[in-house]
């Protein structure tokens, strides 16, 4: 038992180490990107209102006359203390702006993942079980189609049909700030459907591939030889083993949603993080761009790390 515990710790530690290195590189990339764009990090930190005297003072305080790697160090220190700068246009700390916008994006991502999984996993299983038949070709084809549709186009189409013509959903927006929670969820249905539908393609393909792998295994033949019904064989014996890669891809889909939210939020006028980033880019609001990139990339890395850990926990055979 003790041996297992120290081995687990070693595994976690090595994975965490890798994650930290990637985060460090991410930080460097973001720093370099923003410097390249804005040129002067001080105005990025202080905002447009700074006077020449302020700038000179801060430059000396922050040692900006020092070489670049040192500047990076100062910047990083600020970031790790939670200071992501102040938005030029919103006149608020970036962290606050991000936090205010977190809810719509998070809810959207979760709803979209739920829709994608609810469509993707069953379709993938059916596709695998009836491999080669019409159903399989149909689902695989739909999955391929889903990966070819631009999200903004689908968004506009769905708005036209369901919001404008049928009037079932709001054309855009997220409801008033004091609107009840259900109303806000209702506003998210169409955008979540767009994101969910398009990303279900990946889940269908992955589920199908994983199930096919497992269905070809010897122990599935053993299960059949015991006289179990086909649905028991597929849903109990095969699916349990196919689940790990499927859960992995669902987890990755969460990360994909963050990127996908950018366009969807713009089309549907949702006050989320994606929308914030787009307007920040259009307005050259560098603190926001920088902060958002850092946070989003960090979340992505953390999600991947968690999936790695989950893998080790769920599968009793993983050599930990």
């Amino acid at each position, binding site marked *: 038992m003790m041996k297992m515990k120290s081995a687990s710790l070693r595994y976690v530690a090595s994975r965490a180490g890798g994650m930290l290195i990637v985060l460090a590189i991410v930080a460097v990339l973001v720093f370099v990107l923003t410097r390249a764009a804005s040129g002067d990090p001080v105005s990025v930190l202080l905002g447009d209102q700074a006077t020449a005297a302020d700038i000179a003072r801060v430059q000396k305080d922050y040692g900006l006359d020092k070489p670049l790697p040192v500047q990076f160090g100062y910047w990083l220190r600020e970031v790790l203390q939670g200071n992501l700068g102040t938005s030029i246009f919103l006149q608020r700390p970036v962290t606050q702006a991000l936090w205010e916008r977190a809810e719509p994006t998070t809810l959207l991502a979760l709803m979209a993942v739920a829709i994608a999984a609810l469509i993707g996993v069953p379709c993938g299983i059916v596709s695998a079980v009836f491999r080669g038949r019409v159903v399989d070709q149909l689902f695989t084809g739909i999955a391929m189609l889903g990966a070819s549709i631009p999200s903004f186009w689908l968004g506009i189409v769905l708005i036209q049909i369901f919001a404008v013509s049928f009037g079932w959903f709001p054309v855009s927006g997220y409801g008033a700030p004091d609107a009840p929670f259900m109303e806000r969820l209702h506003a998210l249905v169409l955008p979540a459907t767009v994101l969910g539908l398009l990303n279900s393609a990946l889940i269908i393909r992955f589920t199908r591939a994983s199930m096919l792998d497992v269905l070809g295994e010897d*122990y599935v033949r*053993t299960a*059949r030889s015991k*006289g179990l019904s086909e649905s028991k064989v597929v849903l109990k014996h095969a699916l349990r083993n196919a689940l790990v890669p499927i859960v992995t891809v669902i987890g990755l889909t969460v990360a994909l949603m963050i990127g996908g939210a950018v366009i969807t939020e713009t089309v549907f006028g949702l006050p989320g993080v994606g929308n914030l980033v787009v307007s920040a880019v259009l307005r050259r609001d560098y603190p926001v761009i920088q902060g958002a990139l850092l946070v989003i990339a960090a979340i992505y890395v953390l999600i991947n790390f968690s999936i790695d850990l989950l893998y080790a926990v769920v599968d009793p055979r993983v050599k930990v």
Partner: protein
Amino acid sequence: MTNANTTPRLTVSNLSTSFPTEDGLIRSVADVSFSIQPGKTTALVGESGSGKSVTSLTLMRLLPKTANAQVSGSASFVTREGKTLDLLQIGEREMRSLRGNQLSMIFQEPMTSLNPVFTIGEQIAESVRLHKGLDRKAALAHALHMLELVEIPAAAQRIHDYPHQLSGGMRQRVMIALAMACDPTLLIADEPTTALDVTIQAQILELMRRLQAETGMSILFITHNLGVVAHHADDVVVLYAGRVVESAPVRPLFAQPEHPYTQGLLACLPGKARLPGQPKPKRLFAIRGQVSSPLAPPPGCAFEPRCDLALPECSVAMPPLIETHHGREARCVRVQPAQPLVRSA
């Protein structure tokens, strides 16, 4: 076959299994007939590609659906209740009620034949609950009993183990426990010891022999190893290229093999490195040549290209399977059909 007075547990008649492929139709099993007596072991012998595994999978109806197998012939199975069913004709539901119950199978690869995410106790119990209707507790108790029966040490603790915590030999014992959990009348064992160490092989075979003696089940033993056959089978059916080339009770087969292929197989055994009547050679014997491709079978006898005793008529047409003695058959132009007993007046 031995003692044809009792009804065989399984009678296979003219079984054929073919697979359509991009390159043509592959006849893995062609016109195979044999029977297995209750309480006896019939060995199905042949090299890779002879069709022995396909035969067993066909009987269990476990061929993959994507293979699009074409099956013909019949397989009469006598159930515990005395009913006779054709395994190839009955509905899937009825087949499922037999599988794992009266008719079970153990496979060649113990390392991969058990589901890695369930404990061995659960996997055995599942079978019992399905066919005997026991509740979870009773089923697990029965599973424990089975594990003890197959001589798994510390069974009470190991019942909660996962397959990867067991060695190959142990896993095969678990497979046997699984297959026998519902007291089958016919056990199909597809090369159950091939993947195991020699010492473990002997233990497993001994275990199977003991279980057979205790329960009276029949065994269809599929193997390429004649040494095993000599010690554990009652009847032998030799397959070559999907066809039966010789069948006989075990002692007569070993004493006087009739088909050149069987003679060759026996000559391959190091202890028997000589053909009858020849002086003992100094080299190991091997049948020359290889099995022909299933897509391009020879026009006559399938073994003719490799046969040292071949005659011109062997490459013209496939010889028929002839009864040579009581209970023996061979498919060769060189064998004499059994003479009907002539009673002098």
